[in-house]
């Protein structure tokens, strides 16, 4: 057991998996010699060679498209998209191909593929280095969308994603890379994809969230505890599939639900979570469901006052939770 950052947990898992399975390869822009723009893959090319950790041409459609072919012919590709914002040139390959291949072949073909990409804002990344793109992919059956919120989860979820027989998008919050630290066991372990985790027990209200917002919600919960408000935090860990059981359980338990994400409000994961609660747990609620999310503007602006106005913060979460508690 060692204390690691979120980034180190991901790197060490990649290393462990590369050692365990020679069919696994990593590739993408700048992942080899430079070790990735965030240095997640630092040292991996030196250890595993240029055939297994590959600097690819600057072409996301080709990165994902070749990964589909390679996966079908026996490799376990774990390509990286340099920023989630640059996944769009590959969307055709991901949505039309990777997601539909098993279904269209009536189960004859499968695409075991993990696409890693840093996402999220609050790092002066502006419109094209801050985006949250999970809801777009969560809409697509055939894909799994995983978003770890702690170093421990980052490891167990990544190992599961690599072992999965279907395409998994694995989104890493770039503001979490170095700011989140936690205990991570040395040995390999798997966290099942589709299982949420109650990160904090509480009785007055539930915050349902994922990714960086888990730690922000924890900070808000600590503040609220001093004010006598007891907050439960459910970390979804994957936004497709959603853990319906865990969502309903917490809603029934506290009767008040605040859903938090950095992604835009409209059409976001919050809408789906709240529909599930409305359908299956309406009469357990003591207050209308509340959502706190990024505003409906095309992307996060650069200038600090605008970026701050966009970002969901621990303070904004605490404020929303206070309102809900009072209802």
């Amino acid at each position, binding site marked *: 057991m060692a204390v690691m950052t979120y980034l180190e947990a991901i790197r060490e898992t990649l290393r462990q998996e590369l050692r365990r399975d020679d069919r696994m390869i990593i590739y993408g*822009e*700048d992942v080899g*010699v*430079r*070790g990735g*723009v965030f240095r997640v893959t630092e040292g991996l090319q030196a250890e595993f060679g240029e055939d297994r950790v590959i*600097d*690819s*041409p*600057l*072409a996301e*459609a*080709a990165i994902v498209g070749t990964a589909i072919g390679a996966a079908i012919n026996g490799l376990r590709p774990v390509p990286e998209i340099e920023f989630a*914002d*640059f996944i*769009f*040139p590959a969307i055709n390959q991901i949505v039309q191909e990777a997601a539909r291949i098993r279904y269209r072949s009536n189960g004859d073909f499968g695409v075991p593929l993990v696409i890693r990409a840093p996402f999220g804002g609050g790092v*002066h*990344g*502006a*419109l*094209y*280095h801050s985006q949250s793109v999970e809801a777009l992919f969560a809409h697509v059956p055939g894909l799994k969308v995983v978003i770890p919120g702690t170093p421990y989860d980052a490891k167990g979820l990544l190992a599961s994603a690599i072992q999965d027989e279907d395409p998994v998008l694995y989104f890493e919050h770039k503001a979490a890379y170095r700011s989140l630290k936690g205990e991570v066991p040395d040995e390999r372990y798997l966290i099942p994809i589709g299982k949420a985790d109650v990160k904090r027990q509480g009785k007055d209200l539930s915050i349902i969230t994922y990714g960086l917002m888990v730690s922000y919600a924890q900070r808000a919960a600590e503040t609220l505890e001093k004010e006598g408000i007891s907050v439960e935090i459910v970390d979804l860990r994957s936004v497709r599939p959603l853990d319906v059981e865990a969502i309903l359980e917490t809603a029934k338990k506290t009767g008040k639900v605040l859903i938090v994400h950095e992604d835009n409000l409209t059409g976001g994961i919050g809408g789906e979570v709240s529909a599930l609660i409305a359908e299956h747990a309406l009469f357990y609620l003591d207050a209308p469901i509340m959502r706190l999310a990024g*505003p*409906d*503007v*095309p992307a996060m*602006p*650069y*200038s*600090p*006052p*605008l970026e*701050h*106005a*966009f970002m969901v913060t621990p303070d904004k979460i605490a404020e929303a939770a206070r309102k809900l508690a009072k209802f």
Partner: protein
Amino acid sequence: MTPEFQKDIYYHMALARAVDDRMWILNRQGRAPVVYSSNGHEAAQVGSAFALNRGEDWIVPYYRDLALVLAYGMTPREVMLHLLGKAEDPNSGGRQMPAHWGLHRRHIMTTGSVVATQDIHAAGLALASKVLKDGRVSVAYFGEGSTSQGEFHEALNFASVHKLPVIFFCENNGYAISVPARKQMAVMDVAARAAGYGMPGVIVDGNDPLKVYEVTKLARERALAGDGPTLIEAKTYRFVPHSSDDDDRVYRSREEVAEWKKRDPLVTFEKYLLDNQILSSEELAAMQQKIKDAVNDATDYAEKAALPDPSTLGLYVYHQ
């Protein structure tokens, strides 16, 4: 080419270098979160800009093109306002990351970060020029790394099929962040790709502004004559890391950088102008003073300017 014209080219190259140097200082002082540089690319950018009808022809730049936009009429104040994310930034009102240019007034197309998307926009601007017969040429600027994208190839093909008045201008500096050109393409020259689309591919020394000017001028004439697009490849080098967040020591040797530095376009062009008595040392000193003043003025102005008001966050999602 008149001496005045050549001096003007030099002035804009030197201005760009001085603005760039100042941006790095502001970054190191923690006053500018990120810097993207044109340092080393000035000859390619300014030389090509001067072959255009500046402010009338469209340029479609990318983040590397500080010297280009200065040569195209953006002011140092406007650049610094953009760098510091101020409300008055005419590129984006502080919304975009530095080096994401766009100024309708000067026909500088607005640009995002997603590489190669702009190549197709240039073709589209040129499509309108062909239909409207407005006499404008459009020029897309991009790095060699971005030519791996499908959209680059789609742009060339579309433009060539329809003989659009467009120029594709590649600034080949040998690297896409850390990835060397040989891992980007199996050909030596980006220009070779033109053949597949039925257009000329021209290689030029990107560190010589006069040569760049000449080839761009020819490509422009060709475009205006209705003969279609040209792909120009300016071979050059960036002297600094990809951005202020990059450390280039990981992927290229100091010797390699030093070798290219011997051909610093600013130094060699200055020497050429002095040796050929196109520019006197007194004129040079005056020019340098003017540049210093402009950079100081721009920095002071931008630092004092107001940040955007958070209440403007929701403006311009749609027409208003």
